């Protein structure tokens, strides 16, 4: 197929969706451009790469989750099934008394550095936004506090989202109770 395109098609390969020319693409890919533009804009080199706070990212993630729950509600009406969107954030947002192995998971997720701490903040914001939603309006079920009264090891795995049989049973019971 190579070589069958016109010159105009060939030139279009060097243009992005925004209609930027090859020269501008090359210019913006240079380190000099990046530094000068970041200095001129006060530290942010480009809106696409501008650092976003974990709180705003968490709010954005919650918005996507809630939008998906509403979309599934529409499918529910269209296809005649029942639907439940269950929020289960894992050990980072659990109110359970953590055992040492669970605490080690939390420490492992929050201690290594700024990146992990930012993710913890992001997840907390996301959880806060979702739990503030009026659950009567949509098919949303918050399971964040289902494990709070459980004893012993519940959360396992490196990300603290997997659970032991006791945790899984508690989640299943909470879901069934809400049907």
């Amino acid at each position, binding site marked *: 197929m190579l070589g069958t395109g016109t010159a105009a098609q060939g030139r279009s390969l060097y243009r992005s969706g925004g209609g930027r020319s090859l020269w501008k693409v090359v210019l913006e890919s240079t380190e000099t451009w990046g530094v000068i533009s970041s200095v001129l804009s006060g530290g942010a080199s480009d809106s696409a790469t501008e650092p976003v706070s974990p709180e705003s990212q968490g709010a954005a993630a919650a918005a996507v989750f809630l939008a998906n729950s509403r979309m599934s509600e529409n499918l529910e009406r269209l296809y005649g099934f029942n639907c439940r969107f269950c929020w289960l954030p894992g050990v980072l947002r659990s109110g359970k008394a953590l055992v040492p192995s669970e605490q080690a998971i939390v420490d492992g997720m929050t201690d290594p550095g700024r990146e992990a701490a930012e993710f913890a903040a992001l997840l907390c914001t996301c959880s806060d936004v979702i739990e503030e939603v009026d659950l009567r309006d949509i098919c949303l079920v918050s399971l964040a506090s289902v494990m709070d009264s459980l004893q012993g090891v519940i959360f396992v795995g490196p990300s603290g989202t997997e659970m032991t049989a006791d945790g899984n049973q508690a*989640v299943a019971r909470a879901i069934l109770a809400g049907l």
Partner: protein
Amino acid sequence: MRRSETGAFPRIAATVAALGLIAAVVFSDSIGLGPGPGTARFGIISAILATGLLTYGILGSRFSYLFQAIGQVLAWGMLAVLVLETVFFVIARLDPARSSVSPTRDVAPWSAFRSGIMPEPYTGWDNDPSTAATGVVLDASGCRIVPGASTDPAAYAVFVYGADAVLGPSIDDSATIPCFIQEGLDSLWQGPVRVENRARPGWTSTQALIDLVLSLRSGAKPDLVLFIGGFEDAAAA
């Protein structure tokens, strides 16, 4: 005297040629050269050429000095750009805040579970039976089996979507969330129940929703659909 005579002809010829080119551009409409495709480009090329020829016609033997000077300016300019690029490259690597690559979560939190999945259109990836974790039994459609699930086509069908929490790669088939839902519905529902564990490692609710849409389009008729997750949605933000 002889030298100036021999040098005069090229200068005069260059000046005449330049004026001719300028005239051709100015009167292009009158002589049938435009307007049309390529006319603008012809004008630009002619203007550049005419400028060069006219400059040579005026400067004569000093034209070579101008040519050298322009070359030197361009060479120094290139050198300056190279030096600036090198310096700013080092600065960008030393200061992550100035790096064009976002420092946050370049590696997905679930990347540790890369074994056990394989590429899949639309949803990104699917369970891979050939590299599934020990003790994880998958059916023909890549779903983890749910012990006790009815095979009756008319059974009450429950689709359970999620990620690692629902898939439960580190626990037995009989201890997953879908398995407990199966047990609970078996005692609550009058009739056969089929719970399907449709969880995939690291799937967000968006991927689950896409899979549900694809299943509905293929004719699946679930009675109950459960999405269980949240961590992965946050991680994907």
